[in-house]
């Protein structure tokens, strides 16, 4: 099954992590992608900080452009990947080994991807 995993963190807690530690974990993230290459369908993308986000939102007189992310939540999405594994248990086991999870405020959301479009045909 294919899942999109979304890496999220809390910017104010991220700021408290010492730079050398961040660098060390960054190295392990690089290794993580190498080690799990067999389960990663698309390594996806790492995103620039949320301060660079622009959102286009529905407006009654047409789309409105605003500064900032789509959600008011404290957590922000920092990147995503696509994995292809047997089931949710395998996805959870893989995600549990994500190196950044040792930092407070970090969370990874697992969402199944729509792959069978026949369900929309009836």
């Amino acid at each position, binding site marked *: 099954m294919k899942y999109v995993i979304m890496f999220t963190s809390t910017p104010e807690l991220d700021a408290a992590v010492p730079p050398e530690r961040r660098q060390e974990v960054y190295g392990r993230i690089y290794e993580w992608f190498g080690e799990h290459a067999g389960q990663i369908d698309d390594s996806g993308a790492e995103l620039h900080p949320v301060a660079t986000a622009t959102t286009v939102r529905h407006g009654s007189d047409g789309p409105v452009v605003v500064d900032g992310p789509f959600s008011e939540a404290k957590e922000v999405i920092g990147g995503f990947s696509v994995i292809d594994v047997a089931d*949710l248990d395998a996805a959870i086991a893989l995600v549990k080994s994500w190196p950044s999870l040792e930092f407070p405020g970090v969370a990874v959301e697992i969402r199944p991807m729509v792959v069978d479009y026949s369900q929309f045909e009836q």
Partner: protein
Amino acid sequence: MSQTDAAAGGEPEGAAATASDLLLARVVREESGRIVGALSVSLGSLDVAEEAVADAVVEALREWRARGVPPNPGAWLTTAARHNALDRLRREARYRDKLALLAESFRPDPAAAGEADERLPLLFGCCHPALSADAQLALTLRAVCGLTTAQIARATITPEATVAQRIVRAKRKIGTAGIPLRIPEGPERVDRLDLVLTVVSVMYSEAHLVAGGDADADRDLAEDALWLAQVVADALPRDAEALGLLALLQFHRAREPARAIDGDLVLLGEQDRARWDAALLAAARATLERAAVLRRPGRWQLHAAIAACHADAADAASTDWLQVLTLYDMLLAYDRSPIVRLNRAVALARVAGADAALAEVDALEPTLARYYLWHAVRAQLLRERGREPEALAADLRALELTANDAERRLIAARLEA
């Protein structure tokens, strides 16, 4: 436990109808989980399988109540469920390719000897941590125990529409998110078994927490929980914790006859121990011993060992409180939840006095201030220290917070005394 035990609740009217409902519930319970398990495997869809069996259960309850239970109820339910599944598959285009599967491979054989219990993978899937606790309980009750949505709604004091929605969402999530119906291996196994045992334990205690219900009115869920604990323990005889939970529920069940008199709750310390079910207490002790032999301690065994301490005391005064306190101290290594700490404080009061216990209880205020038992325990301790006005205030607060009639009467009786 025997059928007469369970039927001895003393229903005021329609005793015959109730007994036959009880029998129907048992037959359904014994068969439906197996059929859901087998059908899920052949269809690859819990959603279709569970729906088909749930409809068959409703049909069975109606049919069998009118005409009696057929000679082979398992076969009757299987045929009805298979028929319902075929109907659903034909209706929905996305399932059409599964039709052939059902025709070829669906031959569940509940009597197959030596085979692993197919209800266990289903149960472990229903108790997946990716489902909410409410959903785990509702889905387990329906898919594994064969309760109808209406029965679950009544037993858990939840609107029927809410229960139905919870079950539908949980089943969809299992299908869409790829939650496997199996017993996990490796390090996940222990955690998942604990979740399964937690759901069974909640099932048992829900039976006592029916808001507005009387103490006698809600025996069924407790019996379902006891049955399920037995199913799990039988299927996993090397898992000490599964035996631990079974022992715990057997101890609780054995004390049940003394726990409520004419619908009024009686506290453990004041129960007439002659009313305890001696045979079931013996069974509970034997279960706990079987667990101990496996030398894999855990929180459910410790809970059961605490229950055993109470069962071993001839009367409340001869309770070995030091032993109870020691067991609670060991339990804290597994479970530091406020409820465990509150119960430990009760034992601490008997060993070290009310002041020491009060200090412990007061430290729990931030988490338990809205829990009626926190106030009730505190009231008791304050009273022992002669702080009557504070005790009275605490009892009144407990009274405000309990939603259960029997518990309310118990506290009210204490206030009148």
